[in-house]
């Protein structure tokens, strides 16, 4: 699998507004950010400050109302929906608070979903998925369903899934939010390790000071602004 590294991330004056019966609700107010490969950032802030919204826009899961987003110099929102999905699969990996594992698929199948999104799953892909599960310490649980895994184990599977396509951009939305403190630390350390191994650009939205400290660099989201 070829490593595709996003060398840079550039946000300029990104706004996000939602229509309501009264007046539009502005969640992001002119957010600007620039990062390069290997850099990590923790975004902290109170609930409703727009952290997850910002992450969704960076991850191309949502579109900004105004402003530009460039990943490796390209505007992903200029792509067609199908091309954007493919771009996302190759360049971006997600780790969610809810892990979002498919309950009907085994651990390895959940990891392989990332490959299935953009094509057929070959033997090399299966081998790569097994290696990733080994890497996160779940090589022996590959054929288990999510219902048979603990919370931490599920999150590890999610991390493995996020790394399958060797994305250059790793986005984490409260990755330790549902875990106990001990498991949280384990997961946090794992996230940072694999991000460094991949030389990926890591952004994590978190309430966890522990994770923010481990990451080292943090910015605060307040009232739609990144400060």
């Amino acid at each position, binding site marked *: 699998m070829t490593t595709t590294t996003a060398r840079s991330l550039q946000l300029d004056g990104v706004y996000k507004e939602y229509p309501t019966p009264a007046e539009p609700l502005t969640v992001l107010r002119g957010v600007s950010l620039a990062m390069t490969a290997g850099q990590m950032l923790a975004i902290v802030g109170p609930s409703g400050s727009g952290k997850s919204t910002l992450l969704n826009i960076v991850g191309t899961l*949502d579109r900004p109302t105004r402003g530009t987003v460039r990943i490796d110099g390209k505007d992903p929102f200029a792509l067609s*929906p199908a091309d954007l999905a493919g771009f*996302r699969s190759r360049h971006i990996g*997600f780790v969610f608070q809810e892990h979002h594992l498919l309950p009907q698929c085994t651990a390895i199948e959940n990891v392989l*979903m990332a490959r299935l999104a*953009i094509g057929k799953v070959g033997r090399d892909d299966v081998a790569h998925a097994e290696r990733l599960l080994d890497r996160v310490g779940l090589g022996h649980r590959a054929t288990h369903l999510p219902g048979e895994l603990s919370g931490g184990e599920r999150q590890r599977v999610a991390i493995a899934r996020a790394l399958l396509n060797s994305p250059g951009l790793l986005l984490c939305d409260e990755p330790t939010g549902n875990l106990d403190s001990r498991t949280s630390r384990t997961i946090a350390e794992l996230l940072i390790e694999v991000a460094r191994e991949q030389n990926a650009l890591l952004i994590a939205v978190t309430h966890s000071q522990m994770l923010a400290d481990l990451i080292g660099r943090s910015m605060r989201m307040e009232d739609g602004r990144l400060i």
Partner: protein
Amino acid sequence: MTKLRFLLRNLVFFRAANLAVIAGMAVATAVLTGALMVGDSVRGSLRQMVQDRLGPIDFLVSSQQLFPAELSGRLMEDPSLAGHLKHAWPAMLLKGAASAEGSGAGTAGVQIVAVGEGSPYYVPAGQCVINGTLADVLGISEPGGSLLLSLPAADQTPRDAILARRGRNEVLTGLRVKISRIERDPGVLSMFNLAGSQRPTFNVWVNLRDVQQSMDQPGMANLILLAGAGRISDPRPAMAALQDALRLKAKLEDFALRLVRSVDGTEVALVSRSTYIVPAVDRAAQRIGVPQRRVLVYLANRVEKAGSPATVMHYSIVAGIDDLAGLKLGDDEIALNQWAAEQLKARVGDTIRLRYYQRQSNGDLAEVECPLAFRIARIIPMDGLGADKTLTPEYKGFTDADSIADWEPPAGVKIDKRLVTRDDEDYWEKHKAAPKFFVSLATARRLWGNTWGDLTSIRVPADQAVTFAVQLLKELDPAAMGLIAQPIKARQLVAAAGTTDFAGLFGGFSFFLIVAAAMLVAMLLRLSIEQRARQFGLLAALGFAPKTLQRVALGEGMLLAVIGGAIGGLAAAAYTALMIHGLRTWWVGAIGTSYLQLFIEPVTLVIGLVASLIIASLAITFAVWRVSRTHASTLLAGGWGYAVKPAAIARPMLYLAILGLLAGIASLLAGIIRPQLTQAAFATGGFLLLASTLILAIVRMGVFSRRVSTSIEALGIRNASRHRARSALTISLIAFASFILVTVASMRQPPPADTHDRKSGTGGFQLILQADVPLTGDLNTPAGRDLLGIRETESPLWRRARFIGMRMWAGQDASCLNITRPDSPTILAVPREMVDRNPFRAAVENPWSLLDRPMTRSDQIPVIADHETAMWILKLNVGDSMTIADQLGRMRSLTLVATLKGSIFQGELLMSEANFLRLFPTQSGYGVVLAEAPAEDVSGLRKLLATELADYSTIVESTADRLARYQEVANTYLSTFQTLGALGLMLGTIGLAVVLLRGLVEQRPELALLSAIGFRPLARLRLVLAENAFLLVLGLLVGTFCALVGVLPTILSTSRVVNLSELALTLTAVLALGLSVLTAAVWIGSRRIGPADLRAE
């Protein structure tokens, strides 16, 4: 890992939800395919009926006149038939009445089939076999008893001829036979009928000789039944061979013709058993190059020398002749034989006047003065034509009498024998009925010619008689002589395709079941997808393109549809069997026979499955369309999109709804003001009202979301606006279904309130009489009643009633009671009185006057039909034509010029009497009589008619009953629709409950929260129930209200009423079932709400 494997994994994992989708799909497929298979079963049953009814009989040769039975043997001698036909059985087929001796129970409309030895259906002399239908109506449970049959007597002379025998004892004959067997099993004996209708007939099989004897027609038949040699796939070659064989093997006797040598032996006369030479024979003879003399004789009651009233003669034969031994008489010239001249003391140049009987339009005879006065041109000697009794055809009771005193005139013909002189008797002794007077043939034709014939003989030189006979047989077309061959089995198989599309009919009846099932599939699938929003969001985040996600969802849905469809295909047979059972029992009024079987055609199964899959794909597409249109971030958050800005869509929809409402109200008002627009007004107004009200209800549902809810029920109702699409779908289905149910309930037709209203469906008549043996007397006159042999002829009921008789050509029933396709409907002749009276309602002022109007083409014959018959059975619009064969096998084009609305003539076509007599010249007497009587007399008159005319095989029914019989078919269809529609509505409410049950899964955290803040279980139940019950009740109210308002024009302008109690019962049952099912669903779904559910929130 592949996408297919992922898909299959999803199907198994979410099996609980998927099973419900499969069940919905199975129901939709079973019902849709089942409906199609009902059509197959009805058609298959009708085809099987044909096979059972006719057995080995593939062809037949029939005639209105009797012919020698041994024609069947002659036909089979033709070698060209060897490969086509195996057997030919002569028979007689008659319609009459039957009564059980002893009990006296009797019935009309009995089909009497007389067969001879050699036939597989032979019955020994003195015995009979009856079918179960007849046995039941006569109350006969076992053989052994005697049956009294009343049959039409055979008199070959047309009954409208002057000397035709028309009295009761002359038109009827009887036969007493012992019942040797009652045949109930399906087969030829029990089901035989040539009309091909599916309705059971009353059949009696008797011995051919017995009937021949009873009718005094030894060796005669009117039917040959022919069995094909093996299975006949295409009857045309056999038909061609049969028609050729008929031409080749027919003799003059078969056409009721024979040759008689003249008194002096110099000529041979071609005469007919039916007295008159039909025009086809005349035309054929004209093509033969043999000298011919044409004669038409008539009986003159009184012949008088003008100016000498004392010099008269009575009861003399006058002959119209084209060549009186070289003399051609002028139009006003007359020749006398010597004897007559002496009796009248007449000389050449004297004037002669005649009086004779003439048949009136009501069938009575009246003596009239000839409009012409004849000048004597010649007196011829008493030899040759001057004294040739063979100029007058043989007439039993006249020409065979030894003296005039021995004459036996037919009933109604008054011969005053006191006027007969000694000289007359002397003449009779020497010359019998030799004509004494001669006029030109042209004059005789003008005065005494008729549609059935205007010649009584064609005479040729004796030495050319054989040549003439041989050539005549070559020229004669058997069909033109009424000897008609037909491929009866092939004809009935074509008719078995039916005129009613039962597949379409039951598809329509089951429409709501299908729609409810399809909507259930859509809603469940949509719910399932909604609950997997986060999964779809994840897949989007992982890089699944929106179209790919949609394909995955569609693929899942279609796979479920295929599985459900396969199960439904198997269940379709069960649904069809249930519908067939219904048609045999609860809805037997629609078809009139319980002879229905299940027939399954594989092609239909495939069509049903494919159609179901197409419907499912529409439902599934509706369910998954949002998958590709929602942002991944929204999906990940568990939602499907923000609330639509009310102003963006709601306002235009609101304006549209208001516009639609106003248009709907205007349309309904138009229907009230202008009754002729009622149907269109309802269709437009009702629909607009429903659509607008629904739009309003759905758009304004959002208003609840902005109000502060102050009660649990109000909060529940507010929740209905949360899933607007789902709510809209539910309300629409229930509203539409209840709208249709109420509308259909208003379409039931009650019997007419006032049968005296001339513009009602009864035409102002209270009774209708149908006679298999046509009535030859006019019930309005004492003479007519005498002729009919009525005993109570002086009853005041006769005087207070008015009767209109109609000649009838008995064909196939063209009403909705016959589900086979009629190609030769019964035809009635409309007398002049009907035109003047102008009864029944039609789109034009006086439709009857159109029957005599000249048509664009001379070969078109105008006819009138009932609107229902024209539209649904014959598939004709005004101006369209259909072709039938007339009495002589000539193809005639009948053109529809007008239709009657809801009349008693739904089984017949109506044409003018003049045209009728052109097509069916020997069809005399009245097959149908309409009676108008004061209300207090109707019951008594009906009894009187039934008693006095029973021997004529009559059925007397009230016109209201006849209309009710026709309406029963339509009302039965409406009942079927209501039953299945109600089932569909119930399925819709059950579907609502299932969707609710599934939806409660996502609502569990919500309910857990309510529990945490103090809501008791009952309160939570009220909350959820309020939301769903609101949808159910709103749908019912909107649909019912709009329908009731929509049918208002119809109710106000017609006599129809809505059976409100039945309707209320149906809707209440639906509401009760719906609420019960919803309550159960809520109770099941909201059990054991606990802290775990709150954590999920």
